[in-house]
């Protein structure tokens, strides 16, 4: 198997993910995640909008560096494995207007709710994952609630979508 071009099977992905989380705890003595990096970017955007000007790029600390690193790594991996695709709309709808509205509504609304939930718990999703590995009861409550609700709502939406055209 070519590790650079092929997909990784679950036993490799799962093992590497677990090792990476513990490795980050060793390297940084802190959990990793995107929310803190996004907080910095959000604060930067807020200041730029209020002052109606962009004087300098966002501050480069380890969290925004991590964010940039993810972008570079994902770009390299998708180019190497041939999964890089330019897509303006998510799949599943027909008609350009319908596609646009569904993509915007699902993206904006879904993203808002995901970050709202994460901010309420005070950590990123992978931060919660790392906390679950450290046996944090709060993280387990969060993850179980999140997956049960997400799965339930997704199944309901799918049933509604499949039954929509039959009535």
């Amino acid at each position: 198997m070519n590790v650079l071009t092929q997909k990784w099977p679950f036993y490799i992905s799962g093992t590497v993910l677990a090792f990476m989380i513990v490795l980050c705890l060793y390297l940084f003595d802190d959990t990793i995640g995107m929310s803190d990096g996004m907080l910095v970017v959000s604060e930067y955007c807020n200041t730029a909008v209020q002052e109606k000007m962009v004087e300098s790029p966002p501050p480069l600390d380890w969290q925004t560096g991590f964010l940039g690193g993810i972008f570079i790594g994902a770009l390299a991996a998708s180019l190497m494995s041939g999964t890089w695709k330019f897509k303006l709309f998510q799949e599943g709808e027909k008609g350009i207007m319908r596609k646009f509205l569904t993509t915007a509504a699902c993206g904006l609304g879904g993203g808002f709710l995901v970050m709202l939930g994460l901010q309420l718990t005070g950590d990123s999703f992978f931060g919660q994952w790392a906390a679950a590995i450290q046996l944090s009861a709060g993280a387990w409550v969060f993850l179980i609630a999140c997956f049960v609700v997400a799965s339930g709502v997704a199944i309901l939406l799918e049933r509604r979508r499949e039954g929509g055209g039959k009535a």
Partner: protein
Amino acid sequence: MEPLSLTGNYKLVVAILVGMFFGFLLVKSDLAWRKNCLNMLLLKDGSLLKTLLLSITIGVTLFFFAEKIGLVHLKVRPSYFWASLIGGIICGLGLAFCCRVPLTAIVSLASGRIYVLWTIAGMLLAIPFVKLISGWLSKSVYDWSEPIKTQQQVTSYFDVNNTALWISGIALLLGIFVHFTLGKEEGGGK
């Protein structure tokens, strides 16, 4: 032994490198694609679930032994029962619609899925909103329960009171169950 606890420029450089590897891992393990995430939530495809359950099984065990020899410290932010529960419900609701968390949104954007910018915009909008209602949150959700305590004191991994053993065992059994029950659909990265 102690954690490395990098600081300054070393921390920044290592964070970029670790981020790059994470980005690579998320693409290679199919964790970043909308279709794969949706198929996992619809219980049509078990491969992502197996990856996540295996990471729990190995991660919990690895952390237990790494903490025992002092390689890592417990780093958990304070959590409150109601905040975790309500946060999980809201996050799950959002996940059903956009099928992405902040980390996978950045990975998808880097992989050419430009429409993820809507998701990232939604995420960035939520941050000032939480600031706006933070006063109300501290008097309600965070005030309804005491912070949850997490630390446990067990000396042996095979102690029946060891939560790590139970969690990794249950995750392993669930993973085996998922392996033999849920099918596999082709990934959305193609």
